[in-house]
């Protein structure tokens, strides 16, 4: 307690040296001197005169004190006094103080972390000027935040609600800045991107709309500040230098300011490139295809235009597009979304999840307050003698309450400070966390003053909240009775506020435990659900041949050579190729039509199917089961008739049944007739939570793609395969950038959301459990200590262990049972919300129900163990002698 002591002395010194105090002393002394002067004049010696003067003055100390009290508003002095006294009292019961501060630290820390995430992802707008008026245009039909480039141009021309519109796309390219080519992440952005967003360059200049002169006409890149710092060491001479982008020369125009990290919160790009260069950057260009929707479109709403007006305006454009381009845009509509989280696609679930998490964190704080409230009430009861004595000595009730509140707020502020410190550490770590290996995810949650303010506010509010619990007790305290009887009297049989608090707290904890169990269960299930492939043991080599300058026929030749080289490696049992693996970062869907359809309007489609291009051997290597027909072979090339393997869901949706699909024909939008060669099992393609989706697999020779993922299976450890794979590919083409990971690790991406959800809910559940333990422990320990004498007498009179326990803890257990039941019921209601985010989170899972009951029971037993032991060991002789 050395620290507390030193604080105490320092505060005391401050208090004593107050100038007002010194001045008052001087005035009183002056009075005594004047009186002594008079007395001396009447013939007394000076010493005798001063003595008499002091006597006549009366109780010097008392009047000094009264004068001081009368002399003004002593808020701060009294506060200091209260704090001093409070510190002394808290230091006297370190166990209580530590438990209370820790409880609050956990609760406030949890709230600070969750609020920080809410603040970073939802409350704080994008870091661009005038972010409030920024809106994103989404498809009205399916809420996809994606538009095609021709549609974007029409929207930009024809809308009357936006100042201007920008289009951008997240993509990856091979960037060679002088050493080796490495995959880098970027935005392809329309030329007006920086101008519309109102961003000023940190160095050099940005590209503008005037730089766009058709395909591949603007070989410029703008670096992000972070990439410039890490790859160019902050060299100002980098501007103007030429670098190789997918082996094309590009000039570095400038560097973006450090605070601007693009128009998506979760993604920090390495650089920006004009959208017109798409062919060079991506290896192909969809800029001319109206059906190719892969661009996000945002813009500032014009001043005075409401979102509703803008939506109406956009939909009149949609009506025009539908009429002018019925093939692609039939039945089109638009809506607005908040930019920053890929519109409502990510934003919706993220916002819902964070709101839910915030509510749970709030519950934690509430439970902590209930916990501390009952602790403080119990302490006030224990201190009833002290309080009664102070009342009897003339202290006002107001003063005593102030003192108690000061103590409560002190505890809460200490807890808040500790919690905030912990959360800052955690948030710093979260901000630099790279949860997904293949994609530069950024979690923008570094705490700012909003977070600090909220934490302090929560600490103060909770201090007042639990400080208020013992108020009634103090107001009703009758000093005379207490001093006479020695305690506040017998423990009442009826339920008190404290009981209610405990039951509430246990209910809240049960809610938290239930939610976290549901989430954990959901994750376990999602890990064991059928993906439609077997990721275990498979290694992925991810590359894009266009990053090394391959195009046309050379792509397929290189892919075949790479596959052959990999297959020949020792230990490799099979290898296959797919353009982008399912459950990865990107996906492609395409509309398909029944063979009988002749008018290829989108509204006539039979299905919207995931589209993959694969090599022979892919299904075997990926572990996808063939249900019927055949897999693809190298003979399914450009000269052979078009074929595809489809999944069972595709067969059901387009042909009505799995059996009926084999050998049947369907059409793509361009009219190509495809025959179904085989049917494979269903799988997961975009997210684990998706409904069963149709998918089709084309032979890569018939539908070429430079995007290449090699799937390799071997009888060796995946780690041992990395070096041979690198060597083999390097031998084929030293300039080809690629990444090697295991498929299991790659799946982190798909599981990311539910993992985050599970971890957060799990942590909150553990917190809830801990609060339940401390709450029950406090209550049980208190009720045992209050009734120890009675228990001793019972034991002396021959009560059995069971009866003693029943008397000591029966009430605690009844409250517990009631609270747990209520909490479980509430928790089951709450998990309905969870099932939106957590995969297969079923609230009616018997295992969850059983688990919750078991956990609450264990927690209760754990918490009640020590008090129960104490009750059983009550020695009647000792107890009776003490009184």
């Amino acid at each position, binding site marked *: 307690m050395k620290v507390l002591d030193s604080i105490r002395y320092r505060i005391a010194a401050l208090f004593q040296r107050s100038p007002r105090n010194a001045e*008052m002393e*001087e*005035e*009183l002394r*002056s*009075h005594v*001197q*004047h*009186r002594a*002067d008079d007395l001396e004049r009447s013939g007394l010696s000076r010493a005798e005169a001063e003595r008499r003067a002091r006597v*006549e*003055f*009366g*109780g*010097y100390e*008392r*009047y*000094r004190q*009264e*004068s*001081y*009290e*009368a*002399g*003004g*508003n002593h808020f701060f002095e009294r506060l200091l006094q209260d704090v001093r006294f409070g510190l002394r009292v808290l230091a006297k019961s370190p166990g209580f103080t530590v438990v209370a501060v820790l409880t609050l630290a956990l609760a406030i820390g949890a709230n600070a972390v969750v609020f920080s995430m809410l603040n970073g992802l939802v409350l704080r707008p994008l870091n661009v000027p005038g972010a409030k008026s920024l809106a994103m245009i989404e498809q009205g039909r399916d809420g996809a935040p994606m538009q095609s480039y021709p549609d974007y141009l029409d929207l930009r021309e024809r809308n009357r609600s936006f100042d201007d519109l920008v289009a951008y796309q997240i993509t990856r390219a091979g960037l060679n800045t002088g050493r080796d080519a490495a995959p880098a992440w970027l935005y392809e952005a329309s030329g007006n991107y920086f101008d519309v967003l109102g961003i000023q360059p940190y160095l050099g200049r940005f590209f503008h709309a005037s730089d766009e002169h058709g395909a591949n006409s603007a070989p410029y890149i703008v670096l992000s500040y972070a990439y410039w710092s890490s790859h160019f060491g902050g060299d100002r001479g980098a501007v103007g230098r030429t670098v190789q982008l997918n082996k094309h020369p590009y000039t570095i125009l400038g560097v973006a300011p450090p605070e601007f990290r693009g128009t998506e919160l979760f993604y920090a790009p390495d650089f920006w490139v004009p959208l017109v260069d798409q062919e060079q950057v991506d290896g192909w260009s969809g800029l001319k295809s109206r059906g190719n929707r892969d661009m996000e479109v945002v813009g500032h709403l014009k001043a005075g235009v409401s979102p509703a007006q803008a939506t109406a305006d956009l939909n009149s454009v949609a009506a025009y597009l539908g009429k002018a381009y019925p093939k692609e845009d039939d039945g089109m509509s638009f809506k607005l979304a908040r930019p920053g989280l890929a519109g409502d696609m990510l934003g919706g679930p993220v916002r819902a999840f964070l709101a839910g998490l915030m509510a749970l964190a709030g519950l934690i704080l509430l439970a902590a307050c209930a916990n501390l409230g009952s602790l403080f009430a119990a302490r006030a009861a224990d201190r009833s003698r002290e309080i009664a004595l102070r009342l009897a000595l003339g202290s006002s009730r107001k003063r005593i309450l102030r003192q108690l509140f000061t103590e409560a707020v002190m505890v809460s502020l200490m807890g808040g400070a500790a919690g905030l410190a912990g959360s800052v550490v955690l948030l710093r770590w979260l901000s630099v966390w790279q949860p997904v290996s293949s994609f530069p995810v950024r979690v923008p949650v570094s705490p700012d003053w909003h977070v600090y303010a909220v934490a302090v506010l929560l600490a103060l509010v909770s201090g007042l909240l639990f400080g208020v619990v013992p108020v009634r007790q103090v107001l009703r305290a009758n000093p005379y009775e207490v001093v006479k009887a020695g305690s506040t009297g017998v423990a009442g049989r009826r339920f008190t506020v404290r009981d209610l608090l405990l039951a509430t707290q246990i209910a809240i904890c049960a809610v938290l435990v239930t939610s976290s169990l549901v989430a954990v269960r959901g994750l376990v299930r999602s890990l064991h659900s059928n993906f439609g492939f077997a990721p275990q043991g498979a290694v992925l080599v991810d590359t894009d041949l266009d990053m090394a300058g391959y195009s046309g026929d050379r792509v397929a030749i290189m892919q075949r050579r790479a596959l052959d080289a990999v297959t020949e490696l020792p230990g490799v049992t099979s290898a296959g190729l797919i353009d982008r693996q399912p459950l990865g970062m990107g996906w492609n869907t395409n509309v398909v039509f029944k063979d009988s359809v002749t008018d290829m309007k989108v509204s006539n489609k039979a299905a919207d199917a995931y589209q993959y291009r694969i090599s022979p051997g892919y299904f075997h290597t990926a572990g996808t089961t063939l249900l019927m027909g055949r897999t693809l072979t190298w003979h399914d090339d450009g000269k052979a008739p078009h074929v595809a393997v489809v999944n069972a869901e595709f067969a059901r949706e387009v042909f009505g049944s799995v059996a009926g699909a084999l050998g049947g024909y369907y059409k793509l939008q361009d009219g190509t007739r495809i025959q179904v060669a085989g049917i494979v099992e269903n799988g997961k393609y975009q997210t684990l939570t998706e409904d069963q989706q149709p998918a089709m697999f084309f032979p890569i020779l018939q539908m070429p793609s430079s995007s290449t993922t090699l799937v390799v299976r071997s009888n060796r450890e995946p780690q041992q395969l990395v070096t041979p794979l690198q060597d083999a590919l390097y031998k084929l083409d030293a300039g080809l950038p690629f990444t090697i990971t295991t498929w299991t690790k790659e799946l982190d991406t798909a599981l990311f959301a539910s993992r985050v959800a599970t971890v957060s809910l799990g942590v909150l559940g553990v917190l809830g459990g801990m609060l339940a333990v401390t709450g029950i422990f406090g209550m049980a320990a208190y009720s045992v200590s209050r009734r120890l004498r009675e228990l001793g007498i019972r034991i002396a009179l021959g009560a059995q262990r069971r009866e003693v326990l029943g008397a000591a803890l029966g009430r605690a257990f009844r409250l517990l049972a009631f609270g747990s039941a209520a909490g479980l019921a509430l928790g089951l209601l709450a998990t309905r919300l969870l099932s939106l985010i957590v995969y297969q989170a079923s609230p009616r899972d018997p295992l969850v129900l059983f688990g919750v009951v078991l956990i609450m029971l264990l927690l209760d037993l754990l918490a009640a163990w020590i008090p129960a032991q104490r009750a059983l060991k009550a020695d009647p002789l000792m107890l009776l002698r003490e009184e």
Partner: protein
Amino acid sequence: MGEQAQILPGTLDLLILKAVSLGPLHGYGVLLRIAQITASALMIEQGALYPALFRLVRQGLLKASWGTSENNRRAKFYELTVAGRRRLHEETDGWNRLAAAIASALAARPEEI
């Protein structure tokens, strides 16, 4: 000094205001002045003066400043503020009414009822 009466609660403030209204005084001077104008009929413990003085300053009825006394000592001098003068008038009226009422009540004889 003759027989002294206990001072009535609440009247000390009035006496201080009156004493100070006759000219600025330090604390001990206030006491002497009260003794003088009441012909030493009231018993006031010396220290009791100070809580009252501080209270009146806080209420804005008196203002205080440091100066040098006739004994050549540093002392704090009090004088009335405008609010203090107004309060003195009010309290004086109130006291006079109360005193008259009490006096007439105490003078009542059985035949007058």
